[in-house]
């Protein structure tokens, strides 16, 4: 779900195309956009506090065979939430699970990993190397 939440509707759609034909699905709820209150912790590790809200879109779909998929994704993209719910429903079938994982989730996860790695590499280039290396304290 975390992978789908970080992928755009177009990216999910592109990956799902490989699994065609997809079973028809009906919307049980949504897609609808709302908010969640994001919490932090005092001092980073203390008592929770309300930091502020963020937009979230959720969707629930049902396949013809009765499988029900849910999705909650950051932002306001209704199409992304619906496709994520569809993928969730598809993955409930043990037999189909592996194919969906391989065709949709794994490639999206790999793309996200490489974006993250590129950013980590840029951050690493700005790492300060002091000339006097001494023991801390």
């Amino acid at each position, binding site marked *: *779900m*975390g992978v789908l*939440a*970080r992928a755009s509707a177009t990216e999910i759609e592109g990956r799902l195309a490989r699994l065609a034909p997809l079973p028809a699905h009906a919307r049980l709820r949504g897609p*609808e*956009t*709302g*908010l*969640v*209150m*994001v*919490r*932090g*912790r*005092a*001092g*980073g*590790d*203390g*008592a*929770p*506090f*309300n*930091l*502020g*809200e*963020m*937009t*979230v879109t*959720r969707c*629930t779909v049902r396949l013809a065979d009765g499988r029900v998929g*849910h999705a*909650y*994704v*950051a*932002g*306001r993209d209704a199409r992304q939430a619906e496709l994520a719910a569809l993928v969730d429903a598809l993955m409930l079938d043990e037999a189909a699970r592996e194919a969906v994982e391989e065709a949709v989730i794994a490639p999206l996860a790999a793309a996200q990993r490489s974006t*993250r*790695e*590129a*950013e*980590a*590499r*840029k*951050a*690493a*280039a*700005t*790492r*300060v190397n*002091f000339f006097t*290396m*001494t*023991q*801390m304290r």
Partner: protein
Amino acid sequence: MYVATKGGEQAIGAAHAWLAETRRGDAALPELSVAQIEEQLGLAVDRVMAEGSCHDRGLAALAVKQAKGDLIEAAFLLRAYRTTLPRFGATAPLDTGAMRIRRRISATYKDLPGGQVLGPTFDYTHRLLDFSLTAAGLPPEAASQAEPDTAPTPRVTELLAREGLMQREQPSEAEPGDLTREPLRFPADRAVRLQALARGDEGFLLGLGYSTQRGYGNAHPFVGEIRVGDVAVCFTPPELGFEIELGDIGVTECQMVNQFKGSRTEPPQFTRGYGLVFGHGERKAMAMALVDRGLRAAELGEEADAPAQQQEFVLYHCDNVEATGFVEHLKLPHYVDFQSDLENVRTMRESAMKAAAE
């Protein structure tokens, strides 16, 4: 006496039409897209998300465009929009310790575990106008890359706490108060104070934070750590009953380390001021951390006589949407109020002049 209570609709309509025209500016120039604002005025977008108290870069960018770049007006628009949406629940507290770090600096430890990472910063730039930006040109050179260090990045406060030199936060899972649901009540607990500060005006908090450094509050702060990056947002939908990730959001965290000379119950040690804001907002996170520590004066048994240490003063005035509402309402017609004041002053003048003549 008659007082105009109606009218002006046409004038208002024409004013708004002119506003739309001035928003667009010279039609010979290309129009700014919301996506361009989101990408190229990112820090304005971040500030609007923080003060609008709603993380959504696209909405904040739209608000910046609609407000013609007036960031307080934009935060107001975002706050108004959020009231139209249902709330699905609250997330698990963010784990900023697991942040994917773009920037992380400490002013207290040079060689801290995990290292100092400058990230995309204005620090150390010469504040000289760069006229090369006036001409649209080729995209800048790609940022350099290096092999990332996979060492963990423990919090500086944790390093001090392990030695017993830093007051630990009270471990708690208490349900925090929510300003958007219940009005402020005093004394406000730290959770409510942090919420108010996180959505407070950067300029107001900056001024107050500065005042604590200049002697109004006797703070001796060090930046233990500032970290900027992305954290995963985890949420448990009731219908699923297990935690899922909603995605990542960018946040800035500041741990301010302050000396504390101890009290009857606490030994001398360092205490922390904490700042956490949506987006990349170091100045705001630092100001928030200074003011958070200021507001802890009473609970730490310190004298609380400076403005930044007074809860009511700080919390009632740090919200720029509330403040702008009350200040700007003075622009609205006050004809009747003013007539009565006018009568009063005239009467007082008459009697003062009569008394002077006698």
